């Protein structure tokens, strides 16, 4: 039911043209993530996995977090209560891959040069560094601060450039970069699908580096359109309500802004769920959405 729904929606968007691409013929994926905040320990493995997978550069002082490129960033949330009733929760924040309304995510629609794009095939918000000319409008548009600017030339200490992955193009100074759900892994998985003569990329064949690395198993990744994928089962997205999770413990960041993100968070703690969005004092957590 879910995928049928999306087929119709996307079909309408693309003027009825068949949306099909090679090996993934007929499959409209909506890749997304479910992060269990009760399991997340804030260890930072996802951040390092991301940096090492995606050729993210580093500088000798990375303590100014406003210029430090971390596609995946783990935020520390607190319940704001005084000692000893204080509670904390860690929240890993990759790019939320907003779908917005019909793929018009906050950042995609504002890019003047089409350097960032929303794909209806995967639901991934892409970023093409060589197209980007560094106006940073997308950064101004993103409420999650998921976009990072290369303020400096990336420089690796002599010899360290040897660990750079050929599947991810290193960025030059002056462009914006962000998490792309390790799209290179989808590209490679699709290549494999071609030579194996299969029809579609399986759940195991395409997992992001952070999902794979998470030692607590807090991150789940897969196709939200596919009821067989774990992410679908965990988040239970309601396609009639822009993917609003039906799992009562699940929430999305700033859902009320209409960003329609594809990263779901799960927590059993009410204060954590409430921290996921802005509420007026008299509003109920999870309420107020569309």
């Amino acid at each position, binding site marked *: 039911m879910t995928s049928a729904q999306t087929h119709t929606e996307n079909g309408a968007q693309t003027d009825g043209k068949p949306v099909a691409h090679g090996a993934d013929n007929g499959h409209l994926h909506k890749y997304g993530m479910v992060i269990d905040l009760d399991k997340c320990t804030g260890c930072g493995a996802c951040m390092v996995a991301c940096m090492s997978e995606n050729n993210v550069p580093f500088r000798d002082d990375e303590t100014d977090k406003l210029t430090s490129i971390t596609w995946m960033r783990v935020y520390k949330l607190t319940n704001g209560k005084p000692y000893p009733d204080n509670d904390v929760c860690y929240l890993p924040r990759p790019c939320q891959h907003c779908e917005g309304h019909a793929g018009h995510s906050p950042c995609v629609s504002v890019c003047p040069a*089409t350097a960032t794009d929303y794909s209806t095939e995967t639901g991934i918000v892409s970023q093409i560094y060589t197209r980007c*000319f560094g106006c940073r409008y997308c950064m101004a548009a993103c409420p999650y601060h998921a976009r990072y600017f290369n303020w400096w030339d990336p420089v690796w200490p002599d010899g360290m450039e040897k660990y750079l992955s050929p599947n991810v193009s290193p960025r030059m100074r002056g462009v914006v970069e962000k998490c792309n759900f390790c799209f290179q892994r989808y590209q490679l998985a699709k290549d494999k699908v071609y030579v194996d003569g299969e029809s579609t990329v399986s759940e195991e064949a395409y997992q992001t580096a952070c999902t794979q690395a998470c030692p607590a198993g807090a991150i789940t990744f897969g196709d939200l359109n596919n009821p067989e994928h774990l992410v679908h089962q965990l988040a239970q997205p309601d396609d009639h309500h822009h993917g609003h999770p039906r799992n009562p413990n699940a929430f999305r960041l700033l859902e009320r802004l209409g960003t329609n993100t594809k990263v779901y968070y799960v927590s059993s703690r009410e204060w954590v769920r409430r921290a996921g969005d802005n509420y007026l004092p008299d509003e109920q957590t999870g309420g107020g959405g569309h």
Partner: protein
Amino acid sequence: MDSALIPKGVKRCPTWQFLAWLSVFGAVLLWGVYAMLLCWFKGLNQTNMNDYYGFALWIWADLAVIALGGGAFFSGLLKYIFGKDELKNIINFAVLLGFICYSSALLILAIDIGQPLRGWFIFWHANVHSMLTEVAFCLSCYFAVLTIEYIPLILENRQLDKVPFFHNLSHNMHETMAIFAATGAFLSFFHQGSLGGVAGVLFGRPFAFREHILIWPYTFFLFTWSAAAFGPCFTLSMTWITEKVTGKKLVKDNVIDLLAKISGWMITSYIIVKIVETLYWATVTAPSKGFDVSHFYTNNGLYGWWILFAELIVGGVVPGLILIIPSLRRNSAARVTAILLGCFGVCLNRWVMVLQVMAVPVMTFDNWALYYPSWQEVATTILPVAYGIILTMISYRYLPIFPQEAELNPLEGAEEVEAEQEATAAEGAAEPATA
């Protein structure tokens, strides 16, 4: 030395003095150019911008100069389309200011982007959904229009005008100026508006986001309106400053009064709409996203309620009222206060719509981010000011910018020398004030 180039019937300061001041502002300009080159060659790490402040001083400067430069299109519209013929006596200056403002805006944009060599992608790979694309296209087109409007003025230089071709060209261009004025007004409507749209469409930023009419957010219309309203304030302010610097009356009072009156009514109507719109945003739009409007004005060191008051009342209601009340408007001190407050108001509005948008945390666990510009940013922002002063100095010296100048300041034999000395002294004393 350059007397052959100076318009007939007017007096200018000695060349050495002119050159001395030129070199002063030239030095400031070079300082800005040095900072600009640093940004181009070393990258934007020369600035204090960061991932929270992707837009900062420069974008504000862009928005501000374009709003202030709005006097050009609006005066043109009034003169050529609505037939306010008196304005011909100030239109040249308005065009010059517009030209300065828009060329500055384009220069700042060229410094602001991370990859200047790829700047042309905005045209070649344009994304029609982006407000910035609309800005880039309309801005470039309108800059071309301003250039076309400025050329006849250059051709009116005493020597150039002697060349028949140039004389005829200038004449013919004047004839068709109405078309350009109309085009300019049309383009301005869109780029002023789309600059407003830049912030208004950001639905991820509740402080900036505004409800839409058709495809445009309210800010689209408010920006156009405010540019039309406050642009003339800038034209009048600069005229006033030029008069102070030169020590001469350059534009007749009736012209000033007319423009001030129109500006006043525009400001008043604008500020009423703006207040209504702000109330709607504060009571409907923001709460629908879960924000109490106090969130945007508290818990930080800079952006308090005062900024709302300063923008709406001090920079809006006050100048609007002064300029629509004839007795106040005709009082020189009050009028000057009003037009300066108007310039301040519109600049503050642009500041809020750029910088405060970046400062306000949206995620509940995020923090306010405050920012101060680096000297390179300041220098590159002052660069256009120095460039503007220099271009104004040159234009004023060699071109008949103020058609009424000769009439208002007749030259008479013996007095001539005295007047020149006076003017020189005044120019020398007051010029730094423009910086």
